[in-house]
């Protein structure tokens, strides 16, 4: 096994230099950026910036290389067969919308069924809800138990001959649990059903190989994995993408346009309308380099250790209730919880007063909250650049919450 070339270092992240006292535990919402990523993006704008793909001069060739090399880096990172399968989008949400608009409007009709896991983020739910409404298809949900677990048997029962597609996150942003995507993909494919994997929370944290998982589509966001905002990825199997109609149209995605019609460019360009975001793609590639240098082995080890530490300490506090699995190892850095008698907003406000950033609300998963019978929750989510001190500070504040809200003891 490859030994990491680079040690984990908080000092790489300028935000913690600026705010020495900050404990950032909202990593599932967005991650902080290491200077290596910021510097690479800046270098792009200083030395390689031009409109790529069509330019016949040196700077534009540099921009094209920067862009296409980033695509190749993403391809390798998720084990896709070809760069034709890697579409750059704005974020995971746009990736998922692209599938629903392009594949969905061409393949879903009245009487068809779309199956969505109940824990899906709104971004992997609303596009399907809108599609189902528009086409007169049925939107069905696969429910999980209170530990956040989905059972293969339930999936088999939920699939019907009409089920065209199943959408599920590899890691839910509320539970932190890894869903058995590979097994589910097998079940879906046996039924002739496609599987969309929302990798927004998994790709940044565990090694993901689209061929091994055997998913048809995978969506994720750069900003949740050290990269700048405004860049995301859609992976799709080549045969599928090939047959899909274009989604956004405009410059750069055509072969030939006349007054009456157009022929579209080859993959992946067919799905990238308008001037592409080279700066974002380059930033994502630099983020992947950074992750690779540390290595997922070290990243997972650190994230699991910190999760376990936090989980065990939280378990000791009687009025704290952790949502989802009762085992630390099922949480992958995401610990969503409630505190008896205290509203999540107040919890977040008290944490903020102690300079600890966590999130409160429904985490863009309202149907899941309804399913679990809670109105809103508080979530701490960590990244490899967090440390034990962060967790200690988190636990210390957590212990004071009820007292500071006016409860005795």
């Amino acid at each position, binding site marked *: 096994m490859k030994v990491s070339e680079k040690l984990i270092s908080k000092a790489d992240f300028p935000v913690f230099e600026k705010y020495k006292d900050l404990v950032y535990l909202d990593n599932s919402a967005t991650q902080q950026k290491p200077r290596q990523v910021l510097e690479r993006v800046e270098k792009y704008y200083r030395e390689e910036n031009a409109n790529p793909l069509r330019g016949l001069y040196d700077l534009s060739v540099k921009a094209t290389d920067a862009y296409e090399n980033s695509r190749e880096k993403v391809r390798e990172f998720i084990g896709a067969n070809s760069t034709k399968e890697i579409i750059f989008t704005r974020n995971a949400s746009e990736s998922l919308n692209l599938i629903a608009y392009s594949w969905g409007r061409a393949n879903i009709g009245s009487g068809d069924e779309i199956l969505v896991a109940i824990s899906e983020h709104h971004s992997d739910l609303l596009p399907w809800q809108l599609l189902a409404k528009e086409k007169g298809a049925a939107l069905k949900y696969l429910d999980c138990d209170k530990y956040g677990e989905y059972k293969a048997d339930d999936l088999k029962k939920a699939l019907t001959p009409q089920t065209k597609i199943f959408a599920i996150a590899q890691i839910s942003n509320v539970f932190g649990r890894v869903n058995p995507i590979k097994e589910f993909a097998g079940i879906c494919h046996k039924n002739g059903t496609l599987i969309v994997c929302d990798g927004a929370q998994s790709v940044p944290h565990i090694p993901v190989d689209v061929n091994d998982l055997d998913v048809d589509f995978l969506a994720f966001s750069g900003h949740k994995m050290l990269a700048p905002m405004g860049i995301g990825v859609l992976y799709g199997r080549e045969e599928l993408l090939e047959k899909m109609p274009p989604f956004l149209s405009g410059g750069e995605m055509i072969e030939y346009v006349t007054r009456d019609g157009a022929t579209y460019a080859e993959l992946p360009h067919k799905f990238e309308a308008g001037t592409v975001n080279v700066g974002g793609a380059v930033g994502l590639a630099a983020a992947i380099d950074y992750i690779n240098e540390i290595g997922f082995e070290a990243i997972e080890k650190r994230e699991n250790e910190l999760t376990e530490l936090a989980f065990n300490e939280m378990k000791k506090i009687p009025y704290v209730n952790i949502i989802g699995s009762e085992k630390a190892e099922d949480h992958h850095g995401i610990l969503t919880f409630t505190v008896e008698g205290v509203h*999540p*907003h*107040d919890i977040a*406000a008290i944490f903020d007063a102690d300079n600890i950033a966590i999130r409160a609300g*429904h985490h863009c998963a309202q149907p899941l909250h309804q399913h679990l019978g809670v109105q809103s929750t508080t979530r701490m989510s960590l990244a490899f650049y967090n440390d034990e001190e962060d967790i200690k500070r988190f636990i210390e504040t957590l212990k004071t919450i009820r*007292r500071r809200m*006016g409860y005795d003891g």
Partner: protein
Amino acid sequence: MTDNFYGEVLADHNLHPLHRHELPCATHVCKGLNPTCGDDIELHLDIHDGVITDGSFTGLGCAISQASADIMLELIIGKSPDEARYYASLFHKMIEGKISDEELEELEEAGALQNVSKMPARVKCALLSWNTMEKLLNGGDS
């Protein structure tokens, strides 16, 4: 008790609200929703002959929204709809940081929410009940 995060007044109204209960025969009911957090409130007012004779709220919310609702009801019960609207306008002024000292005094306990003007993320929580009341008085919901 000096340790109270939001101060005595708010903690008290949050933990021991006077007006948090059903009001089955209220003449007016209106729902409010704070989409940022999913908090909701149901405001019940009994209005007879131009006077708010009774009121209550139900629903879930954070300490700020709950205390704000309770304090608001304390202030407007026994007043006319126009007076209630006037208090709402003062409350808005306070949250925007534009209130005079005299006006602040008129708001009585609601003045305890003045600090919210420094917590932009919580402004919506503090305003939820007030906005719902205005909606109700302007004929919203039933």
